[in-house]
């Protein structure tokens, strides 16, 4: 059985925000055929910050224009995922399908990435169990160029096998792209992998895969100020400090006050005891004790 996860790199900020609202954080497992249209119902991406930022540096074309120009220039590409158990050789483990979008200015990017993962065969299951026992590495690799596989060299990533099993085998790919080149793939568990790694067999020998495509984002520019803006901010608005709580304002007075009060209380508590011993000081003590009965009377 194949599980297909669909990922789309979202082309512009607008669409991206939209997708964030639509996409749920649950991993979507589906073997349904994909409709070819610009479908925003992609799953598997996490609504995390990294994901949002990953798609920002796109060419400055409007979304509507893109839709027209792209359809005739798109082509399908396919590249395979290979895996290895410990030191073994790499063998095929799945296929990535994607559409290659060619932009007006010639740049090419991948969109609509779909992944179909092969389930472990019996032999592979056994190998994987050995990895779990030995706390060894499970390694995967991708070609460094999606058009002319394997490109210059394969990009490799590994994880300790014990990080993967949960209910099923949960895996998470982050594929760093530069045009049609794959710079690196980061492979691992979708969440935490607590340190004393426990030996735990998965309940189901099936994969739950999540894939994120990342392109480089643009660095923030150095700020450029024109003179008038500077002048405006310097004299114009008076920045009002946010109103702070009573405690935040006056803690430095309150603490000594509290100390004084506490000191006074302890003194007052000690006074009656001393009084029993010394008769001579009675008048003074009586004055101090004065208020107390008054309070009681109320």
């Amino acid at each position: 059985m194949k599980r297909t996860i669909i990922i789309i790199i979202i082309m512009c900020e607008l669409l991206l925000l939209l997708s964030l609202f639509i996409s749920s954080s649950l991993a979507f497992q589906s073997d349904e055929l994909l409709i070819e249209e610009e479908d925003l119902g992609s799953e598997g991406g996490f609504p995390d910050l990294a994901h949002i930022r990953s798609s920002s540096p796109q060419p400055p074309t409007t979304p509507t224009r893109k839709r027209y120009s792209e359809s005739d220039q798109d082509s399908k590409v396919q590249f395979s995922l290979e895996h290895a158990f410990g030191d073994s050789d790499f063998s095929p483990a799945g296929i990535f399908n994607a559409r290659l979008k060619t932009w007006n200015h010639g740049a090419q990017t991948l969109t609509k990435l779909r992944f179909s993962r092969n389930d472990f065969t019996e032999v592979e299951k056994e190998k994987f169990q050995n990895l779990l026992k030995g706390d060894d590495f499970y390694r995967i690799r991708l070609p460094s160029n999606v058009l002319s596989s394997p490109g210059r060299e394969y990009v490799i990533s590994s994880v300790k096998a014990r990080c993967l099993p949960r209910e099923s085998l949960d895996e998470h790919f982050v594929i760093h792209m530069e045009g049609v080149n794959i710079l690196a793939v980061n492979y691992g568990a979708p969440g935490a992998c607590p340190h004393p790694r426990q030996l735990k067999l998965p309940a189901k020998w099936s994969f739950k895969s999540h894939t994120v495509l990342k392109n480089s984002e643009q660095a923030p520019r150095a700020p450029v100020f024109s003179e008038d803006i500077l002048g405006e901010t310097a004299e114009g608005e008076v920045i009002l400090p946010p109103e702070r709580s009573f405690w935040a304002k006056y803690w430095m007075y309150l603490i000594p006050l509290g100390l004084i009060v506490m000191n006074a209380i302890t003194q007052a508590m000690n006074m009656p005891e001393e009084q029993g011993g010394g008769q001579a000081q009675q008048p003074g003590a009586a004055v101090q004790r004065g208020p107390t009965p008054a309070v009681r009377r109320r």
Partner: protein
Amino acid sequence: MAMAIRVFLLSLLFFSLADHSFSLYEDQAGLMDWHQQYIGKVKHAVFHTQKTGKKRVVVSTEENVLASLDLRHGQIFWRRVLGANDAIDGVDIVLGKYVITLSSEGSILRAWSLPDGQMVWESFLQGSKPSKSLLSVPINLTVDKDNVILVFGKGCLHAVSSIDGMVLWKKDFSAESIEVQQIIQPLGNDKIYIVGFVGSSQFDVYQINAKNGELIKHTSAAFPDGFSGEVLSVSSDMLVSLDSTKSILVTINFQNGEISFKKTHISDFVEDHSGIADILPSKLSGVFAVKINTLLVFIRVTAEGVLEVVDKINNAAAVSDALSFSEGQQAFALVEHVDGKVLLTLKYSHDWNNDLLKESVEVGHQRGLVHKVFINNYIRTDRSYGFRALIVMEDHSLLLLQQGATVWSREEGLASIVDVTVSELPVEKAGVSVAKVEQNLFEWLKGHILKLKGTLMLASSEDIAAIQGMRLKSSEKSKMTRDHNGFRKLLIVLTRAGKLYALHTGDGRVVWSLLLPSLRKSGSCEHPTGLSVYQWQVPHHHAMDENPSVLVVGRCGPNSDASAVLSFVDTYTGKELNSLGLVHSVAQIIPLPFTDSTEQRLHLLVDTDKHAHLYPRTSEAIDIFQREFSNIYWYSVEADNGIIRGHVLNRNCIGEVVDEFCFDSRELWSIVFPSESEKIIATVTRKLNEVVHTQAKVVADQDVTYKYISKNLLFVATATPKASGEIGTATPEEASLVVYLIDTVTGRILHRMAHYGSQGPVHAVFSENWVVYHYFNLRAHRYEMSVIEIYDQSRADNKDVWKLVFGKHNLTSPISLFSRPEVIVKSQSYYFTHSVKTIAVTSTAKGITSKQLLIGTIGDQVLALDKRYLDPRRSINPTQAEREEGIIPLTDSLPIIPQSYVTHALKVENLRGIVTVPAKLESTTLAFAYGVDLFLTRMAPSRTYDSLTEDFSYALLLITIVALIAAIFVTWVLSERKELQDKWR
């Protein structure tokens, strides 16, 4: 109202800190810092002693320095440092007042004023073909009463006027296929001979009129055996060369336009000759020296062209050029090593059997062999001729020998430092210091009284001078023991000559030096080079009776696959404890964070075949190592290939020999940069020994963020291959710079960011959770600096106090890098006016003190810039809370405050690196900048908040206390008396 006052005070405090965070008063210069000037290994030397003025020698060095040295004391009169690719090929003096240098492969000729080193003129000589560059100053060749300088460079012969540098005439040889070897100008003759080879088997002579550059005659002759390249002129019409097998000496006679060859087998001179011979390039008249294996043979050429051996020398030796000192008499110096001493012999070139001078000088065995010798003559008080010799040693030091003694010496090896590490000084043994103090009690008191006078403004000008002198050379800072504040340390520096020096941080003197025997040229190790120095053993538990030691790693040859050499040196005594010549190569050296029971640090040496070798090779080390075996990861950067790989240890090496200290590795991850768009230009990691005080960072409004602190972060910068050259070769559209933050255990790219329209060179520094890097923005035509800060989000939930109280936090749980990281990254860019040579950051003992960036500017100075200026949280209008926290309003460029130059008025010529060392005092750090010069200073980025300053007057304090006590006493007595009187009343 109170708020406003507080804000005002805070801002006042802030401005006072910001503007003068590292300024000095004039009289404080030299108090905490020292500066040493060097010139590098001398290549050429010209003496100037004829006039009765200052006796000097003008030298040019391998560090591209031209300097004039005082012959009496060896001090630098003046010094000019040329650019990195402006190597000096020749130096001479003309007209008795100009120093002429030829540099940049024969294309730049400059004249410098001899007394003060000002440049008089400069001329750029055009040429098309790269060739040997030759500078020749004929003694009395004049054109229109103007002394002529002959320069051959880039395939052209130029005659240049010595007065203004105008090219008088030019003869282009680039069309001919001749490789010019020599310019020969016979005395009292207007002809110049240009001799050279065409191919390897034809010899050509061009005869040129020196007045106008016209070609008089061109002759050539074929020599079927072929030449090996070099020629040496023996007399005005005789040359000597070797044939292509280097076993036959060829004498070439080109008198009267006829060329004749004469061959002599070297085996005629030396029996059982095997191997190849080399002609020494020393210009001696009528004689030349041939080096055959270790044997040096002097051969005389008679007028008929017959060769005869005059002497054979079996010791390591160096020979100077011939010097004519009186009516046609010429002499040269021969320096030999005999019984650990240097034997200087001066010989007449026409008469071998009589020595002019024979002196034996002790120069110390830590200087190695003599590499070069230059001689100069003077007239003694008894009117006879005396000679002095300037010798350059194997360790690059420069010595002047005269009358059988070393007049002065300069440690020029320190101009080419390769690596620096630090060692503590011995702990002060009880009893020693007390006696010293008692002895100097009077001195101490006198000093303090003087200081007191200074503070009370009572001191006279002599007193002030005395105070200043006392402060500058206080014995306190140059003691050979550890001090309480940790200011006194030993800097262990490795130089390119393979010599190790220990410098005292107090005054910069050389405590000991060691020319490492394992890094000297030997049969098994042809071209040894020193790579780096590491702290090998730092005893804490046995600090009283064990000495720390350092590990020096070198390699036998320029390529990375050459076999490695290890050497262990005691840092107190400067003795080599042990050395290992290894069978494997060394590509990476990884100091591991484990030490054995003797506190030797474990080191992993990775060779070019990706095998890891563990040192020290003891079973205890293996035990410690096996415990941490699965937690050791490393990475390798293949910059040419554009690949970064991660590795993990696998199992013991499989080979013919069982080696339990050798481990196989396996590749865990790889990052392949597309070769057409990205090329690795810089990689930076955190310093291994950096201390971070706290992970939490309190931001405005009592909020807290957690720094992502990992020792396994790597900063990588890549640029488009087109834009990785010089600035200006690429347009902004085709240039882009991409920066990465990579976790080196899992290979995760934590952050990736592109600067479009920018290019390298990138200089970066990584500390705590931030990277600062410097690059060029082609669009803005300016340099920029950017900062990236990385924060850990997985701990962000721990802000809740109740969670902390009930222990529901994850602060103590171990972190696994295999977990998916939850980080956020903040970044900001600013313009920066200077171009930068290197960047470093201050480091303190506990990491509490705020950080300053130390920027090595293009002007060879060190600028301290507060890290607060590079804070991605800066905004145009910081809120009140942010202002109180110390956030500076955002500006588009970083300020350069003149007072914050750490090097104040000094320059560290050819600045190459800055090393910071934490002192024991938390507020203070030592900063050591090295290049051709050395500079060390003590810095306090947040001022010395934890100690009193040096000029604090203890005496004043003492007097105040005494006065107070006296006052108390007096008032007590008075009050007693008054009370008594009251009672009597």
